[in-house]
């Protein structure tokens, strides 16, 4: 019922805000305590300051080094290129154990599965000709970049896919591994690795049928390199699914101010508005790196019901499906499309029930 849903959502949001404000202090120096007690707000302020310096790269990601540097405000400029942003890693480190609380900090990501899993599933089904009863994604190799605690990897694994989940934050991988270990079917189908995308490129050239990068590209340092790496590990004609947030005034107001500071839908400091990606920019980057954008569709979160739905408007969240160009011998006759397209009809509406004999 509406009343129940709204009340529950508000209680949840308030509980989270209280929890976020009272983050447990970690062992460390006073500087660390202070940093923790003021919460992630301080990290956001750091981000604002750092924006002025316009660093183009980040520290080489050795995790032990990163942990010891965790509370330093000043960072040396890096010389190597990486798509991983260590500031971002810090934020997610703090919440590594919260992934699987369906009513906790990641509630919105859990309920996003209700639309992103059917989107991926239906798109892939419409492109393939065989259907295995009960295992619609059987035989498909998927790379889940920035898998976090495995929120998206597990449903894809349950649908039959072989999933490799990578995430630079080791604690996330630990959480994900532990969570899947209780289900023997998932334990076999999903492999997790603590790694960045660049690190696996050499050993995984053209190995994956599908890459999903959900709620990731707004956290990477170098988007173009990220897309190039995706292209390298993806098989020709492979699919790339991205969900992310648009960079508009509306997304600042709703996505940062309301979602983080007021309602606590997302832990504070999670997002940096400067790193939001407008769909036009994403499309341009994709098209110029060998991808053909097939679908762009807006997503809308209803904080009262805690559920997501598809919408035409892409000014907040949106999803993209792109296909890597085929093998060089299959040159396309038509020029790459640059217009925004509506979601294809086969993807269905949010939470569509399948036609089963029930």
């Amino acid at each position, binding site marked *: *019922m509406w*009343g*129940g849903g709204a*009340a*529950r959502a508000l*209680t*949840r949001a308030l509980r989270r805000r209280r929890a976020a404000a009272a983050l447990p202090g970690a062992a460390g120096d006073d500087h660390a305590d202070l940093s923790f007690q003021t919460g992630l707000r301080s990290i956001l302020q750091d981000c604002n300051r750092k924006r002025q310096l316009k660093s183009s790269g980040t520290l080489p990601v050795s995790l032990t080094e990163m942990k010891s540097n965790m509370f330093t405000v000043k960072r040396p400029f890096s010389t190597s290129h990486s798509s991983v942003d260590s500031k971002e890693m810090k934020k997610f480190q703090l919440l590594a*154990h*919260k*992934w*699987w*609380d*369906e*009513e*906790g900090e990641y509630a919105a990501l*859990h*309920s996003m*599965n*209700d639309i992103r*899993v*059917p989107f991926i*599933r239906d798109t892939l089904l419409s492109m393939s000709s065989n259907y295995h*009863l*009960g*295992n*619609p994604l059987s035989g498909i190799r998927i790379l889940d970049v920035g898998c976090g605690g495995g929120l998206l990897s*597990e*449903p*894809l*694994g*349950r*649908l*039959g896919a072989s999933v490799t989940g990578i995430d630079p934050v080791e604690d996330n991988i630990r959480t994900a591994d*532990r*969570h899947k270990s*209780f*289900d*023997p079917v998932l334990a076999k189908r999903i492999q997790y690795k603590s790694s960045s995308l660049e690190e696996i490129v050499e050993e995984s050239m053209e190995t994956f049928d599908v890459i999903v990068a959900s709620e990731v590209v707004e956290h990477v340092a170098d988007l173009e390199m990220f897309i190039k790496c995706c292209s390298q590990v993806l098989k020709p004609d492979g699919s790339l699914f991205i969900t992310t947030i648009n960079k508009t005034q509306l997304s600042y107001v709703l996505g940062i101010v309301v979602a983080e500071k007021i309602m606590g839908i997302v832990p504070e400091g999670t997002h940096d508005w400067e790193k939001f990606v407008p769909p036009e920019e994403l499309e341009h980057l994709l098209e110029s790196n060998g991808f053909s954008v097939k679908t762009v569709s807006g997503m809308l979160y209803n904080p009262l019901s805690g559920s997501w739905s598809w919408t035409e408007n892409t000014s907040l969240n949106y999803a993209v499906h792109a296909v890597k160009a085929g093998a060089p011998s299959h040159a396309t006759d038509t020029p790459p499309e640059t217009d925004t397209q509506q979601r294809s009809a086969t993807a269905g509406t949010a*939470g*569509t*029930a*399948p036609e*089963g*004999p*029930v």
Partner: protein
Amino acid sequence: SSAAMAALRGRPLRAPLGARLRAGPRAPLRSAASAPPLYDVVVSGGGMVGSAMAAVLGHDIHFYDKKIALLEAGPRKDYDHLPDSYSNRVSSISPGSATLLSSCGAWDHVCSLRLKPFRRMQVWDACSEAMIVFEKDDLDDMGYIVENDVIMSALTKQLDAVADRVEVFYGSKAVGYTWPLPSHGCDTSPWVQVELADGRRLQTKLLIGADGHNSVVRKEAEIQNIEHQYDQSAVVATLHLSEATDNNVAWQRFLPTGPIALLPLSDTASSLVWSTSHNHASELLAMDEESFVDSINSAFWSNINHSDFIDAAGAMFRSAISLLRPSGSAVRQLPPSVARVDPESRAMFPLGMGHATEYVQHRVALIGDAAHRVHPLAGQGVNLGFGDIACLAHHLSAAAFNGSDLGSLKHLLRFETERQRHNVSLIAATDVLKRLYSTTLAPLVLLRTWGLQATNALPPVKVRSHFSE
């Protein structure tokens, strides 16, 4: 009544979800080698509702690679050879329930065994002339009277057909359940542990309790149950009619002691369901067959309870209605008279009403009598259970196709909301009807007389009530 409905529903609107995630005895972590077998769904209780739940899931395409277990405390019965005589436990199956049974292939078996469709239901009051007739405009079947054994036989066949997916454990009583903590941040098993009487253990991602109105699953899950024992028992028997007739009408007469119903089994036989006081029920069972038959006939035909006042008031109201709606009342038919009763077919069982305040918890769902128990006067008991199955199977199928964790409260709550909305009003209405018709007090008789007559004249209300599932 909205307060009563709220109380029946149990949960206040703002109950925190955290309360649903039980902190019961923790499931210990086991090494992989000794881990009990893990099932996707375990259905506890192999009655009509439990067996149908397992059969429907087993035939669902999105459950093709899933493992389902059905636990039944009793032994496997041989349903292959149905006796010629009718069993005394029958159910009125609504068209919606028939659709559910055909979705898992069981309805074809029922039709090939035996069943009796009925087209009309006539309900009338012993204290007045008021009568209401239910029938579909297109003269389609309103429902079917089927012996419970026939339904079980059909379901058992369909369970055998999907034995690679559904494992049925006969003679396996579940004696203990261990609930998981909510799945975040713990090293203990996230699954429900089930312990059987013979010491075997199972693990499951979702436990469905279909173990009747004294549900152990419900008790162990500490789900509060609002229950009330009626001062009534139901007497069932198989009767033979005085003469063969079309027999496609179900008859129910409200006596002050309780409703008596005659449900058609064939052109010459009908099933009796007589709800009456415990004492009277024992008497009925004790008396010889002739007296028993006489009591039944007298119950249907006698006008002892009429009073002139009520008769006059009723007649006046009826003429008023016929002014407004000339086509108002349907023709009153006469119930058949009974000649004899099948020996040893008489039995009685106590009646009560119950409703669980919650149908679901993390990794647990209740269906059928475990969730709700209703008076047989509306013939709805098993149909509510089948309705639960249709709804839960729909949500589980969608969840499986989305790759979701089957035990997740998200979709279980959707099932609960849908079914509570449907069930609570029906159970409350049945309870009200039962109480309203248990009296001979003139004002209440007048109220229900006029109410019945008015309802009989208003097609929208009639069609909406009960048989239109």
